[in-house]
């Protein structure tokens, strides 16, 4: 059981680091949701099924949905959502 716990902990940290390092916003949001999902497995092993259910349904499911709803509002004129500083600068200049 400890080995399984250790492996899933490593996965949790790896997905969190992915959310930090990756360039694409969408992938970052998805990696954040995956962190919650792996953490809910950890909660089950630590004998907390209530918390695991809540984390899987709310922390991982609904939060990701809300992020995507917000991203859909944002992406309307930000078609190239891969994040580049120079582009953002140019666009704001055009708006001025």
């Amino acid at each position, binding site marked *: 059981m400890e080995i399984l716990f250790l492996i899933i902990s490593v996965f949790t940290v790896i997905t969190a680091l992915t959310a930090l390092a990756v360039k694409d916003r969408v992938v970052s949001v998805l990696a954040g949701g995956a962190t919650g999902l792996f953490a809910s497995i950890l909660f089950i092993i630590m004998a907390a099924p209530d918390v695991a259910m809540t984390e899987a349904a709310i922390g991982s499911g609904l939060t990701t949905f809300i992020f995507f709803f*917000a991203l859909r509002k944002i992406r309307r004129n930000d078609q190239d959502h891969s994040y580049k500083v120079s582009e953002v600068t140019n666009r704001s200049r055009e708006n001025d």
Partner: protein
Amino acid sequence: MIGTIAVSTGSLLVLVGLWSALTNRDIIRMIVGFTIFDVGIHLIMISVGYISGGTAPIISNLSDIGVSYVDPVPQALVLTAIVIGLGITAFMLTYAVNMYEKKGTLEIDKFEELKW
């Protein structure tokens, strides 16, 4: 052993989330950092209530004696904390959307009104 691993994982998640929230230039990814921070805090709280070899605090039989259960109080706290976390995330995202509508960008350096 499980408790120690869980506390270490939670601390790493806290650090990663805070790092992401502090150093990113993109508001959406700062908010993702905050959710990761949340998950780390929840892991630490649950592992403080963990008792090695304990079972979940659900009593199927009143006459069961000698079964060791884990602490239910941190679990109840985390249960409410997760739901509040969703509310706070929705709130932050609403602000992000409104800021985007005002400025047309999500880059934090472009919001210069509050700079000193």
